[in-house]
């Protein structure tokens, strides 16, 4: 009998130990996957925050630019920069033939003419002088410099020719290649050229979409939750509504995209590819999440508080607005943030309403066409150029950073509210 008890005790201890072990290994696994994921993204993406510049001497020859003596600002705007731009690249190798000159030109971004122009507009006194100008390297050379380019492939399988590599290596040895923080990644809109592509358009698109989504979903959801929880009679009809809200939360997001396409675009003719339509579509998706969270936190407010307020002679409305709703706000807000975070990472519905279009302008309002961060990731991941690989990871990093900041913000708000109430 005694022995039997001891066995049972040992068994219990062992079972507890095993359970603890299972739990620990589960946590370890989760952390491992997370670490691998983050390591992969950071190791691929960090280089996108650096940009490679070629330092090329440019001679601002007034004759080549077709400028008169003492040119005005407008003259400088309208001047022809193509020839001096071309010449300064060709001058990198005085012995270059015509084909090679073409290859030299393609070592920098197609944007180089404008970079030279900006240099002169900043300092008109440069006319007739020579200055070393920073030109954006082409995306392939950028990758070469970052060590991401397979140089040992046979030449016919590479986009960079041996000749370009030779000149580039010369420039490197002469210290004429420099890597700087990639500001244009944050200030440029999308581009077909990897070296010029940035996230400004999709970032703004995401922000506008989220704002539209918040402004529609939050008030509607909170009012619906308050009504259902505090005022609505409990009957078949409200039960039916409740079941449907829960079902709505489980509807795949692409269905909402179809709804946006079929109703917002086809019937209401709202502007295509805009954060306005995207935000409305996302708000449909976020609505049930917020309603469920708000109802749960309203339910969590102890009934004794309601009774206290009612017994003081507060009306139902006053009880709700003065006591129940403020007490439920921290929970409601965290539910809202979770819903918005979901919406922020949503791709499928946005693709359907046309936010997948190539947008090379930065939207100034929710009515302008824009992409969004997850769609930008999708677009870039589809692109063939090597330069976009790191951009994908960098864009993911920005998206994750965005989410972390949102959660932090939610935590701070929660903390403030909770301090006030406890």
């Amino acid at each position, binding site marked *: 009998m005694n022995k039997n008890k001891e066995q049972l005790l040992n068994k219990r201890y062992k079972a507890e130990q095993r359970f603890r072990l299972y739990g620990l290994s589960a946590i370890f696994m989760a952390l491992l996957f997370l670490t691998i994921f983050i390591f992969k993204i950071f190791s691929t993406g960090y280089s996108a925050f650096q940009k490679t510049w070629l330092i090329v001497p440019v001679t601002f020859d007034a004759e080549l630019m077709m400028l008169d003596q003492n040119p005005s600002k407008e003259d400088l705007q309208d001047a022809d920069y193509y020839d001096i731009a071309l010449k300064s690249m060709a001058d990198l190798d005085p012995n270059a033939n015509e084909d090679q000159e073409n290859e030299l030109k393609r070592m920098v971004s197609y944007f180089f003419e404008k970079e030279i122009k900006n240099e002169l507009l900043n300092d008109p006194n440069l006319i007739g002088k020579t200055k070393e100008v920073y030109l954006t390297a082409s995306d392939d050379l950028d990758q070469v410099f970052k060590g991401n380019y397979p140089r040992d492939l046979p030449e016919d399988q590479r986009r960079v020719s041996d000749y370009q590599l030779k000149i580039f290596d010369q420039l490197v040895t002469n210290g004429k290649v420099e890597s700087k923080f990639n500001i244009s990644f944050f200030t440029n809109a999308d581009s077909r050229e990897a070296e010029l592509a940035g996230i400004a358009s999709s970032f703004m698109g995401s922000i506008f979409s989220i704002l539209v989504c918040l402004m529609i979903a939050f008030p509607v959801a909170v009012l619906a939750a308050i009504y259902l929880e505090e005022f609505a009679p409990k009957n078949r009809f409200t039960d039916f509504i409740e079941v449907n809200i829960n079902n709505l939360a489980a509807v795949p997001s692409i269905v909402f995209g179809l709804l946006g396409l079929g109703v917002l675009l086809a019937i209401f003719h709202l502007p295509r590819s805009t954060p306005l339509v995207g935000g409305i579509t996302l708000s449909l998706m976020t609505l049930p999440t917020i309603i469920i969270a708000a109802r749960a936190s309203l339910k969590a407010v102890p009934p*004794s508080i309601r*009774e*206290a307020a*009612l*017994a*003081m*002679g507060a009306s139902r409305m*006053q009880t709700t607005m003065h006591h129940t709703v403020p007490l439920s706000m921290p929970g409601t807000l965290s539910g809202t943030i979770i819903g918005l975070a979901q919406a922020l990472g949503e791709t499928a519905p946005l693709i359907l309403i046309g936010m997948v279009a190539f947008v090379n302008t930065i939207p100034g309002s929710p009515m302008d066409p824009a992409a969004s961060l997850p769609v930008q990731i999708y677009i870039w991941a589809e692109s063939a150029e090597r330069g976009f690989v790191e951009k994908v990871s960098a864009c993911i990093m920005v998206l994750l950073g965005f989410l972390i900041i949102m959660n932090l913000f939610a935590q701070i708000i929660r903390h403030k509210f909770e301090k006030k*109430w406890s």
Partner: protein
Amino acid sequence: MIKIKAKDVDVFYGKKQALFNISLDIEENQVTALIGPSGCGKSTFLRCLNRMNDVIDICSVKGEILINDFNINDKSCDVVRLREKIGMVFQKPNPFPKTLYENVSYGPTIHGMAQSKQEMDEIVETSLKKAALWEEVKDRLHEPGTGLSGGQQQRLCIARAISVRPEVILMDEPCSALDPIATAQIEELIDELKKEHTIIIVTHSMAQAARVSQNTGFFHLGQLIEHGSTDKIFKNPDNKKTQDYITGRFG
């Protein structure tokens, strides 16, 4: 003088009847205790008096309850005005999770009883003084009310209830969550409050009923078995059941 007159009150929870034909008169400026075993309907009856049963969807009340000769179950009765006149203190202390000051000033604010900050300060001070809490908390009026001890919280709830100067105060087992010292303080307070308010207290403790009340009603299985002066109920009850309950044979 009779303050509250209940006539043939029936209460139903759905189809189940919880109170049967209760008729009870309550004297002004006295303490009336309602005693009886758990589930006998004494709290239900108490909640009829300020229509708190309205909150429960399935609950329906029949019969007349006259307060100052006005039937509060009448359609023309506004519950907000009614509850302004009839305060309530609950079993578990339930201060709002706000500051002490906000707790006490809430009632006067929503009923528009103070014209200025000064007036409000006065109301808060007198209410807390009447609730015998002022000396303990006067330096921390702007700290949360939930930080007080259980007994202090209950006195805060009493201060909150009397802040709107109600004519009647309903107390639903106000001491059941408190220790003996806090209970003694509250009982002393009840004795003081009856000078200005009519008090009805539901209690499980017969000793408490004997200590604080002038009148007692004994409930059993949804019926008012007997009511009368506390002296009579405790010393010489008419009904055998009352006798058995008082002497501890059941309940």
